[in-house]
């Protein structure tokens, strides 16, 4: 499938230690646009959650499986796609606000965290058989780079 010329794409093995690579690459991609630190951190945090889900719930940590990370965007917004090779992941049970009963649960916060930090989160079938999570963040340019005013997209 043709890809936009300015798209960055990486193949990441399904091992949690590579989440640091996801974080570093996504943050570097957004930092290049001069975003505020909070926006960059939040994008990285959401990408870590998406990649964690892809490795664990999508690929079930199966050997020789990978997660694909695709990034594109500009100073106004960055789109990150994270796709697994699994049999498909039903995100719907996790699409809800956390309640007081959820507070001390050990799991089940990943999608809530993604939605809290991103402007858009969507799930779709991937280019292969897996699930593709699409994250969109509209960043704010650091004040010193935008002439003293913060300009959100």
């Amino acid at each position, binding site marked *: 499938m043709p890809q936009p010329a300015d798209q960055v794409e990486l193949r990441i093995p399904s091992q949690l230690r590579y989440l640091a690579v996801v974080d570093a690459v996504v943050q570097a991609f957004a930092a290049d646009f001069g975003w505020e630190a909070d926006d960059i951190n939040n994008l990285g*945090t959401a990408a*870590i959650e998406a990649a*964690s889900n892809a490795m664990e719930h999508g690929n079930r940590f199966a050997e020789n499986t990978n997660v694909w990370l695709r990034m594109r965007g500009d100073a106004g917004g960055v789109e990150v796609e994270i796709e697994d090779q699994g049999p498909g992941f039903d995100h719907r049970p996790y699409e809800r606000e956390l309640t007081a009963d959820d507070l001390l649960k*050990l799991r089940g916060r990943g999608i809530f965290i993604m939605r*809290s930090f991103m402007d858009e989160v969507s799930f779709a079938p991937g280019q292969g058989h897996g699930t593709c999570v699409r994250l969109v963040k509209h960043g704010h340019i650091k004040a010193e780079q935008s002439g003293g005013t913060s300009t959100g997209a």
Partner: protein
Amino acid sequence: MTIQQRDIGDVVVVDVHGKIMGGPDSDGLKQALRDLMERGAHKVLVNLGDVTWINSSGLGILIEGFSELRRQGGSLKLVHVPPRIESLLTVTKLSTIFESYRQEDEAVRSFA
């Protein structure tokens, strides 16, 4: 991730370095908290000052330690929480259950 422990009076300070992300890499923290409880520690202060990030599975490890210590009549508190992790605790409302402190001496005194 690496872990070191220090005793300040009857408070055990657990210094965590690196990333807390669940899975085998974070088993050390899970086991360290369990070991502390087995040996009867009731006042545990987790120092997150050198933690670069934590994911939702990592939060689960802290919650497990918090819940188990509370069940045994103890408490688990946090110190030196970096802004990035503080944001995560805020959006998940875990900031309402974890007591966190900016200074270690203040955190240690809070157990008294």
